[in-house]
């Protein structure tokens, strides 16, 4: 327990000193996970909306599959991406292994099912309320999806946050495809793993606290964004 006190002191010290190495790691964590979240949302939200408003044969199994993919272990995603990006893999010629881009790809694959599955649920509930009115207005499928995405934007922010939370907290995927290379692919979680393996438990814990502060800052920023524009939302 003494180590926790030590860790809190260290964490505060790290934050106050704005240590250059820490700043680099924090920036890369944010860059990788925010990029992955953005790409997962750009791809996943429209897909979630399409699944919410359409009915087609095999839709049930597709939903079951996507919901199951939410539970993908990060290590498995990391391995799959590694096998593709490895020099001996099909995409090896791109030279992406051990780069932040590889980490973004892995985290995008990891969280896209979360974004699709949760946005599908959120938008299907919303569509239940709107469907008859939309049909009366004779809207196209595209117009319906755009309207749902915009009107569901606050719930979808929370969906994006869920995806970001998983991305920024995972270590298995980025460790394998990033390699935890100092000044290149080291992020908060891989740094924590490294310090743990060095037996520097208070420092590892302090980094964990910084990561928590980071996640809270992002959440607060999103909520601030919500509060600032929530005027037109229905409570």
């Amino acid at each position, binding site marked *: 327990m003494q180590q926790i006190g030590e860790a809190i002191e260290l964490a505060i010290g790290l934050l106050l000193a704005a240590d250059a190495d820490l700043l680099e790691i924090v920036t890369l964590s944010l*860059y990788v996970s*925010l*990029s992955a979240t*953005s*790409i997962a*949302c*750009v791809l996943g939200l429209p897909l979630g909306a399409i699944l919410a408003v359409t009915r087609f044969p095999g839709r049930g199994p597709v939903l079951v599959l996507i919901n199951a993919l939410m539970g993908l272990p990060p290590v498995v995603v990391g391995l799959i991406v590694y096998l593709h990006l*490895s*020099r*001996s*893999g099909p995409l*090896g010629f791109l*030279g*992406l*292994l*051990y*780069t*932040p*881009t590889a980490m*973004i790809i892995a985290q995008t694959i990891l969280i896209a099912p979360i974004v699709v599955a949760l946005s599908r649920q959120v938008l299907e509930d919303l569509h239940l309320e709107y469907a008859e009115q939309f049909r009366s207005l004779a809207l196209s499928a595209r117009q319906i999806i755009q309207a749902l995405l915009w009107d569901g934007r606050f719930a979808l922010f929370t969906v994006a946050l869920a995806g970001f939370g998983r991305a920024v907290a995972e270590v298995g995927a980025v460790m394998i495809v990033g*390699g*935890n*290379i*100092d000044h*290149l692919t080291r992020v908060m979680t891989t740094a924590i793993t*490294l310090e*743990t*393996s*060095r*037996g*520097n*438990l208070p*420092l590892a814990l302090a980094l964990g606290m910084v990561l928590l502060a980071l996640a809270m800052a992002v959440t607060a920023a999103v909520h601030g964004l919500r509060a600032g524009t929530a005027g037109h939302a229905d409570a």
Partner: protein
Amino acid sequence: MRFLTILLLASLGGMAEAGNIILQSTTSTANSDLYDHLLPRFEETSGILVRVVAVGTGQAIRNADNCDGDVLLVHARPAEEKFVAEGGGVERFDVMYNDFVIVGPQADPAGIAGLDDVGTALKRIAEAEAIFASRGDDSGTHRKERMLWELTGIDPVPASGHWYRETGSGMGATLNAGIGMGGYVMTDRATWITFGNTQDYGIHVEGDPLLFNQYGVMLINPEKCPNVRAEDGQVLVDWLTSKEGQDAIASHRKGGQQLFFPNARTAK
């Protein structure tokens, strides 16, 4: 939606250069800060940036076998020689050694403190059924440990999960686990000296020639892997085995102790 697009574009634009060369190496060398000590010196003289991927020896060799990297520096001589023989690496050079030690709690339930005969120590641990944390991850350290058990004639695997605990993790994680369970752990000295979470643990067994731990370095074969930056990679291999590189290895100290002992043939 617009800010998402901007981030998307930013991330595509950010596809980073992979650094100059990639060194596939082990957790034991990286965790003891050896590369933090060596690489700035190398980069200064050569102008080549080195990126280190630190994994177990087994995984490092597999990554190298997949052409993911330019240079391999590990410690499992038979596996290294097999890798070179199969065309994965160009030529293997001895670069340095350190040694393994067995660390344990002050209570010393198997009574092995002070022994310099690793075979006797392992036998006593097995007889006492004292907890022993093994890497269990096919790393260089793990291979060494299994070889030592073989020499004693004791097969600990049937006791796996009982007193023989295979963590399947890196050196640091295995030390954390072993110390948490009050068990013995075989570790390389460098990792132990730099390890932070030692609690009441100390070195119980050391000095047996069998505990010698040789590191080898080799260029990944550019004939098999055309992506290998052979020229720059060879500069690193040459430097590590040169007088300058060997002196740099010898000067890496923690708490007044030397962690690695250079022994490249070319340096002499």
